[in-house]
């Protein structure tokens, strides 16, 4: 899945600069969400693959398995078990305190110990509350049903066996979630947060998985019980809240807490389970006390409950689980509760079990499940959706294709439009998120669901209103699971190439809503969560190649004029740019050519507020991205925000000129430079490339050269170590290319490179790096430095000589440019021909992603290069890398502004707070 996501970001970069483009791939990410229905808790696993890295996080969303037990009778048992029991058992009480209070209440104290460790405090509090509310109402249904039944049964069964062991197991048991269900609606809120946090924690794949696995075994036993009770199901429906609540709870707690009750059952049935549980057992010691209670409850509940068959099954140690074909056959059973139970059981079975998923597919279970999505009964389509979510998760894309082949995607979208049940919406969007990780399905999702997802989820949850009431305050975004899932889905599909980008950009309200959500996140300083990450990634992807793909983009092309006109015009244009860079603000100033462009652009004229995709590249977004870059601690988000700036500052249309100037004016350069210290490789890479694109603006180049050189050099590997951070090759190459860019046409910047001790590192890289790309990039820089005659004295004083700068370069370049190079070296100035050759070869070397290059920049670049050559500056290689910019730069080279250069343009400085308390 990870692989799928690649592409989007990089493209933009590419356009501007070949090298830069490559890195852009940031866009791709795949997130998979899985839930296990079977287990009371639902698990959501998210797989994010970025840059080839795959991470899996599984979150347990506790979904309740709907413990159906509706029987009111239970209450009696509950009373004793839950509260009374608890009271009675003093030991338990003590446990509970330490562990989870909830459990105690239910009488499941046993479980608690385990749960406690995992559970968050909120739970405890809930637990406390439970007794009160539950006793009267909730308990009977939820807790009792699931637990009570189990426990009861257990009690009867297990007691003979010895409860303690079971309890220990129990922790792993699935049922717990059910208990969670007991919790009141309010609880949900608490749970929700809790559960989600867990997910992040689970980010490490191992952890997550481990949890799910535990659940699975136990859950089955339990789940089955629940399912069997058809009546119960209906009862469940009555209490929708429970279901949701439970889910979350379980998600948060799921692993540890749930198992307890269920375990008891399982144990008898499945000895294997016990082993797994054993680890947990430690926590479970308290359980012994509880056992008595369970027994009592169990007996009561079970008796009371319906579905005799099930009950009998449970009670009967020889009871056997239905095999897979039987379960799938039950999906078509005329009785709805059987359908829903079968679906829930399937979800449970599929959790973390690729083989079962495959078997379900082979047994033609998927079309049946998809068919159930249209079932009028919420319980049925909910369970079916849960099963599909788990089936759709994983690396086996065949399952995803199977869902698509039976028109599962439109069915899901249909259900999304129809249902208001939050749980179902979470399941639907989770399933779509999973499906969206498979490349061939992305366009299908876009075709069937883009506008629905936007209208039903993104817009309402973002807080954006297309026609805001002027009196009311803008609404904040709510980071619900549904929003997270949906944004994750769109994030994945947004990486599916130019057509996908076009569709998303033109989707009514999508860009507006995403921007509003991000602004809301910045306003609330809540920029670390997954939803924000997803939104920023979408924005980055949609920003890729805007200058080429947006309708009417050609009107804004600054280069176009130049190209059509020929070299002369292009030069003019460059001059203009230079002027812009030097002094003017982006919008206002222009020189001859620029003026023309502006006129056509009518930037200043804009009579109506920008909307839709236009918002992607309005200079206003710069502030948003910079705020995110300043505030967020999420590396993925940082990378995406930097990637967005990278994409927007690439290209040669008017808007990118504005963006580059705006970044400076908004004091974005210091923000970016600081991020060069990031511990995250990909952040450093994205920022480095962004700086390179930004330095197409002459003034930015001066600033970056003065203030970023030290950080850039620090990121280079030294002799002793690859680098302090052990950066990947791509990152090192990106940094090298950025350095190359900023010293091009700027002997001042080259001088600061020398002053930051960069030469030593560059020589080391060019001579001894294992990476041909690094070697080549470093040698390009060295050649460039040597080409500044005025610097040679200083260099020689430091003990360097020509061989350090030229031989090196020649060697790495090897076949391509060697011959020509040697000639150049002498003259310092690359010959045009040679340079061109270099360019061709160089482009490859420099940027592995040559393919990206095709964008058309290449053509531009060539021209620029030619000019450059004429001007006589750098080695051909350099020219290759920096297409348009160079020309402009050259003219400006001799600027005297230097002294005044600050990271922040003096003119742009706004009065700021002079001091701040610390």
């Amino acid at each position, binding site marked *: 899945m990870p692989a799928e996501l690649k592409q989007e970001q990089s493209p933009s970069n590419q356009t501007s600069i070949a090298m830069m483009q490559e890195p852009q791939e940031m866009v791709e990410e795949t997130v998979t969400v899985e839930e296990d229905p079977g287990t009371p808790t639902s698990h959501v696993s998210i797989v994010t693959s970025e840059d080839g890295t795959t991470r899996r996080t599984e979150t347990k969303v506790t979904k309740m398995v709907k413990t159906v037990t509706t029987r009111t009778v239970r209450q009696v048992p509950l009373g004793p078990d839950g509260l009374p029991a608890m009271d009675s058992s003093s030991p338990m009480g003590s446990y509970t305190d330490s562990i989870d209070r909830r459990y105690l209440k239910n009488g499941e104290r046993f479980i608690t110990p385990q749960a406690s460790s995992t559970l968050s405090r909120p739970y405890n509090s809930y637990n406390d509350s439970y007794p009160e509310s539950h006793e009267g109402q909730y308990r009977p249904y939820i807790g009792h049903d699931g637990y009570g039944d189990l426990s009861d049964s257990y009690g009867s069964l297990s007691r003979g066996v010895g409860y303690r062991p079971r309890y220990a197991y129990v922790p792993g048991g699935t049922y717990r979630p059910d208990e969670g269900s007991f919790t009141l609606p309010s609880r949900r809120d608490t749970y929700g947060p809790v559960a989600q946090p867990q997910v992040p924690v689970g980010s490490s794949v191992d952890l997550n998985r481990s949890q799910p696995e535990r659940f699975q075994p136990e859950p089955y036993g339990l789940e089955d019980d629940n399912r069997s009770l058809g009546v119960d199901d209906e009862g469940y429906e009555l209490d929708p809240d429970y279901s949701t609540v439970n889910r979350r709870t379980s998600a948060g707690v799921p692993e540890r807490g749930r198992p307890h009750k269920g375990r008891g059952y399982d144990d008898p049935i499945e000895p294997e389970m016990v082993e797994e549980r054993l680890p947990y057992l430690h926590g479970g010691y308290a359980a012994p006390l509880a056992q008595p209670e369970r027994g009592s409850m169990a007996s009561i509940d079970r008796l009371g409950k319906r579905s005799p068959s099930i009950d009998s099954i449970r009670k009967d140690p020889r009871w056997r689980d239905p095999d897979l074909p039987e379960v799938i056959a039950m999906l078509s059973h005329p009785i709805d509760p059987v359908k829903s139970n079968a679906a829930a059981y399937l979800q449970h079975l599929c959790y973390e079990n690729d083989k079962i998923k495959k078997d379900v597919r082979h047994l033609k279970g998927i079309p049946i499940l998809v068919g159930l999505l249209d079932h009028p009964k919420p319980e049925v389509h909910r369970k079916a959706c849960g099963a599909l979510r788990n089936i759709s998760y994983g690396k086996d894309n065949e399952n995803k294709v199977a869902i698509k082949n039976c028109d599962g995607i439109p069915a899901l979208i249909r259900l999304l439009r129809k249902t208001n049940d939050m749980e179902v919406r979470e399941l639907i969007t989770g399933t779509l998120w999973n499906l969206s990780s498979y490349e061939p399905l992305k366009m299908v999702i876009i075709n069937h669901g883009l506008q629905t997802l936007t209208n039903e989820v993104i817009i309402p949850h973002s807080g954006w209103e297309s026609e805001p009431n002027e009196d009311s305050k803008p609404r904040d975004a709510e980071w619900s699971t549904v929003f997270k899932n949906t944004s994750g889905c769109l994030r994945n599909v947004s990486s599916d190439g130019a057509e996908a980008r076009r569709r998303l950009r033109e989707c009514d309200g999508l860009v507006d809503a995403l921007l509003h959500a991000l602004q809301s996140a910045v306003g609330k300083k809540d920029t670390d969560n997954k939803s924000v990450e997803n939104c920023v990634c979408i924005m980055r992807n949609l920003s890729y190649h805007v200058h080429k793909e947006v309708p009417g983009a050609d009107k804004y092309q600054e280069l176009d004029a130049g190209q059509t006109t020929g070299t002369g015009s292009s030069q003019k244009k460059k001059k203009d740019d230079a002027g812009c860079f030097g002094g003017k603000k982006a919008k206002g100033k222009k020189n001859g050519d620029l003026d023309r462009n502006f006129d056509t652009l009518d930037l200043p004229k804009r009579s109506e507020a920008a909307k839709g995709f236009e918002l992607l590249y309005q200079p206003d977004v710069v502030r948003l991205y910079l705020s995110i870059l300043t505030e967020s601690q999420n590396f993925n988000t940082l990378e995406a925000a930097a990637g967005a700036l990278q994409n927007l500052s690439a290209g040669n249309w008017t808007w990118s000129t504005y963006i580059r100037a705006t970044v400076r004016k908004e004091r974005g350069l210091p923000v970016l430079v600081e991020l060069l210290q990031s511990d995250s490789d990909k952040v450093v890479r994205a920022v480095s490339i962004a700086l390179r694109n930004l330095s197409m603006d002459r003034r930015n180049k001066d600033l970056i050269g003065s203030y970023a050189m030290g950080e850039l050099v620090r990121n280079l590997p030294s002799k002793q170590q690859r680098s302090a951070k052990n950066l990947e090759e791509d990152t090192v190459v990106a940094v090298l290319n950025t350095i190359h860019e900023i010293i091009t046409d700027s002997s001042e910047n080259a001088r600061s490179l020398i002053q930051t001790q960069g030469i030593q590192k560059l020589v080391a890289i060019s001579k001894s790096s294992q990476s041909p790309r690094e070697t080549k990039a470093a040698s390009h820089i060295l050649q460039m430095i040597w080409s500044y005659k005025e610097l040679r004295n200083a260099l020689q004083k430091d003990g360097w000589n020509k061989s350090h700068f030229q031989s090196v370069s020649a060697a790495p370049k090897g076949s391509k440019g060697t011959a020509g190079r040697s000639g150049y070296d002498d003259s310092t100035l690359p010959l045009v021909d040679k340079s061109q050759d270099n360019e061709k070869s160089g482009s490859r070397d420099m940027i592995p992603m040559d393919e990206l290059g095709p964008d058309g920049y290449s053509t531009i670049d060539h021209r620029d290069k030619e000019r450059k050559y004429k001007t006589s500056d750098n080695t051909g290689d350099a020219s290759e890398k920096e297409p348009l910019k160079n020309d402009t730069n050259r003219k400006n080279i001799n600027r005297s502004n230097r002294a005044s250069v600050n990271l922040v343009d003096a003119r742009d400085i706004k009065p*700021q707070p002079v001091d701040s*308390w610390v």
Partner: protein
Amino acid sequence: MAFVPGQPVTAVVQRIEIHKLRQGDNLILGFSIGGGIDQDPTQNPFSEDKTDKGIYVTRVTEGGPAEVAGLQIGDKIMQVNGWDMTMVTHDQARKRLTKRNEEVVRLLVTRQSLQKAVQQSMLS
């Protein structure tokens, strides 16, 4: 104390160790800073050289951790826990000082009185 970017800075410095004070959820140092390379250096009332964009102590809370540790108004902060503060933005300096996971901040500061004292001692 003027300096040239990229050149080593020589100054008479004093080490000051401040133990942060917990106030509610926040750890505070009890002083405020001004300056930074993104600020207008001419507005800095404490610097001799009006092109100096360093970080200066602008206020110190009475009885606060910074005062207890000996920090004074007008001190120029050279380093924070080893991090250079002579070439940072205002916000960078603020962040460096307010790391949540650092209970203790070690500053390297210089102040004119120190500078003068040393000069006089050397002259005499």
